[in-house]
């Protein structure tokens, strides 16, 4: 029904547009006076008046209908059912009612629940029709009001342009709303988490065993939320990734800038772009299927014990993924060094290698460092490779052949499956997410600042 309602709003707006444009046309042709706006703007003015309020109304209605009905429904339940229930039990009761209402009955529901389900169905039908009626009424009213305002001297274009401006401002604020949404939701859930687990335990604890019981009758650990092993594991894998990516990426950039002919450049650059465009889930599968067994076989050939999901496999493949970032950012930085410096060095008799190491690299160093920091932030935030190839158990070691876990792996494993928002297991994921967000944000800000400062030197 909601889909049809949106369709109806669109059709109404189109009709309104033609109504308004016809009016505008009449002003031009019959009344013989100069109009302020073109007929199309009259049409657009009416269409905006008809469509936008109704659209916003329906969106808000849909947003709040569920929670309002839930609240009313819960109040309508007999006190015997609702007395002293926690929020988790409350949502359990509500979801049972909804299941019964939708006809998904597993066991004979209690009479209160069955009655409530019937009420729910009735209310939902009423709410749905009420929404349609209100929306149509609003549209008709708006059509009437907007149409009555049209006149030859009416400034329809200014009205439409004012609306467009508001729309554009709103769209650019979406970016801020997203950031605010991220920060608020992470902070809120983390705050809940820190009420259950004290922050010093989270930041300095050495034991991470989040698999705690969700139901009372489950057999599970007591839970320990010391995130140091997780942070350490992330660091180990990111370090391995950088150890692979920085030399390869940097030497690639040096070769492309200083030695490569135009033809080599134009073939190597797209290949690097392919490397950057491969989805991370593909790298993850590559790590599991090819790299991890290869490392294991090599390890057993040399008689070294290696874990099947070693940090080396995950980190190494992550390094491959990051090569293109480092190479293209270093390439840009090296290229931004003024040509006169390079030519001056070559003219003094320096070889190309000397020019590179003594002139270009030092002056491009801030840019390259910025690129490396950006790549590091990507490595820390990268998820799929480590989810598929790294371990799940947080152990406090830095042996690259052993299995370690990372922040992103823990977020994914904690949030897949049972998610109820009032136990520390789920909330811990948000606390980890907050740390991840802040660390990557910090790295990005530092990197961008370094890059910007450096650019100003030559501009």
């Amino acid at each position, binding site marked *: 029904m909601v889909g049809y309602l949106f369709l109806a709003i669109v059709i109404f707006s189109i009709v309104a547009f033609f109504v308004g444009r016809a009016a505008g046309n009449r002003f031009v042709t019959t009344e013989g006076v100069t109009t302020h706006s073109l007929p199309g703007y009259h049409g657009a003015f009416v269409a905006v008046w008809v469509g936008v309020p109704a659209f916003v109304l329906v969106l808000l209605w849909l947003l709040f209908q569920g*929670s309002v009905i839930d609240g009313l429904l819960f109040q309508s339940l007999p006190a015997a059912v609702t007395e002293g229930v926690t929020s988790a039990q409350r949502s359990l009761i509500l979801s049972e009612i909804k299941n019964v209402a939708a006809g998904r009955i597993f066991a004979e529901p209690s009479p209160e629940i069955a009655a409530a389900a019937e009420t729910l169905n009735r209310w939902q039908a009423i709410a749905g029709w009420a929404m349609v009626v209100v929306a149509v009424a609003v549209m008709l009213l708006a059509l009437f009001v907007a149409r009555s305002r049209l006149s030859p001297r009416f400034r329809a274009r200014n009205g439409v342009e004012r609306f467009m401006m508001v729309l554009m401002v709103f769209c650019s604020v979406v970016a801020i709303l997203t950031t605010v949404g991220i920060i608020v939701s992470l902070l809120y859930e983390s705050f809940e988490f820190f009420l259950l687990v004290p922050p010093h335990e989270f930041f300095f604890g050495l034991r991470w065993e989040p698999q705690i019981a969700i139901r009372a009758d489950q057999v599970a650990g007591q839970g320990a939320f010391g995130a140091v092993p997780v942070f350490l594991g992330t660091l180990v894998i990111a370090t391995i990734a950088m150890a692979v990516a920085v030399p390869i990426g940097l030497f690639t950039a040096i070769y492309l800038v200083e030695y490569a002919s135009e033809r080599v450049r134009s073939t190597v650059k797209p290949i*690097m772009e392919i490397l950057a*465009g491969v*989805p991370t889930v593909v790298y993850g599968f590559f790590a*599991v299927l*090819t790299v991890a067994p290869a490392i294991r076989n090599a390890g057993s050939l040399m008689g070294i014990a290696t874990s099947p999901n070693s940090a080396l496999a995950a980190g190494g493949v992550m390094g491959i993924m990051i090569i293109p970032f480092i190479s293209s950012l270093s390439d840009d930085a090296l290229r931004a060094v003024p040509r006169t410096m390079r030519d001056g060095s070559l003219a003094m008799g320096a070889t190309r290698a000397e020019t590179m190491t003594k002139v270009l690299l030092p002056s491009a160093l801030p840019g390259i460092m910025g690129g490396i920091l950006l790549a590091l*932030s990507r490595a820390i935030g*990268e*998820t799929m490779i480590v989810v598929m190839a790294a371990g799940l158990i947080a152990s406090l070691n830095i042996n690259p052949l052993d299995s370690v876990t990372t922040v992103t792996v823990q977020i994914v494993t904690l*949030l897949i499956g049972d998610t109820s928002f009032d136990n520390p297991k789920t909330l811990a994921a948000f606390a980890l997410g907050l740390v991840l967000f802040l660390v990557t944000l910090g790295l990005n800000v530092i990197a961008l600042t370094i890059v910007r400062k450096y650019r100003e030197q030559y501009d």
Partner: protein
Amino acid sequence: MSEAVQSISASITSDEAQARRRRRNAADTRLRLYGIGAISIAIGLLGILILTLAIGGYQAFVQTHIRIQFPISTENVDPENPSEGNYRNVVREGLAALLPPAESPAQQRAMDQILTNNTQFIVRNAVVANPSVIGGALTLEVPASDIFDQLNKGVVRRATPEQNRRVTDQQIAWFDALVEEGRVSTPFNWGLFFNADSRFPELAGLAGAITGSFYALLVCFLISFPVGIAAATYLEEFAPKNRWTDLIEVNINNLAAVPSIVFGLLGLAVFIQIFGLPRSAPLVGGMVLALMTLPTIIIVTRNALKAVPPSIREAAYGMGASPQQVILHHVLPLSLPGILTGTIIGLAQALGETAPLLLIGMNAFITSPPGGIMDASTALPTQIYIWADSPERGFVARTSAGILVLLGFLLIMNAIAVFLRQRLERRW
């Protein structure tokens, strides 16, 4: 004077100087070789990646089928009610006609394993669609079960000792008998594209994942394209330079670098928890992907708007157009090819994005394609993740095949972007 020249020429021809020069040139060559080495390693790794996927995946594009005639007797299937017959018996009778009779229940079970587990349902659907075969016989090409598919493709080796492989010698003998009769074929595996997910590798396909990804990308496009263009136009053309717009710009640059999993947390906490949208729905996936694609689209749109020369704007202003008319009627249409190119590249990134979709539950096991944006569904990358996690042998090849399909889609999208850039983009 001439002494000085002499001493310089002596100093650059002396053995010492030549040794020094050789050393410096060697260092130069070394750096060049390091560069070539680095590039070869990178390209080699990409080659290994693609090669392993192609070798692992090509087998999943064909599927072992077995042609069997099933006698549809009226004892097993009631002509009045064909959907509720004893199709297990029908399948067994079909096999019994070709193979020596089973001597024990265990042997019967081993024989049942040759055909896919869902054979009885395949036969039932065929009979329900065509009830006239009841009382006669029905010939069908039925997919072989995963282990026999692997055997046929040579992944399960006959040379392996019997206790180490999942098919017994007896089963191999039966299968060989079927091969001898010319009943085994390996046609192109259309099921890979037209079946939804399944617990059985021989039946699992990507239809659900492709539809889910399509819906998610559609939502992503419908949100991020208009919002991105409007935001970029405002920031580039109309926004005053003040602290607010600076804040928005810094924000957009930072959003582009936020790890994708954080967007998944946002989707989980806001779209699912607060707004109450359904889990696993392409709608939520598309909304999260839209937020991630938005910075990309805003950045490319601003660059495309910047590239339109001022003469166009000045001419339009000269004709009396209002600032919005200048942008809407002239500047935006001229920059549209650039915007479209960037949008397609942004959507291609969104198509490959996995982590946020995992958090909002698009890794569910769902055996039918979604009917709309509110139905539970998987997406291509999450389907690959699910298959990569599945223990059955056949899923290894399916995963590689799924990846090849995903890469194919990415390749097509990028090719369209390149085409648009070359054909439509104007240079001033």
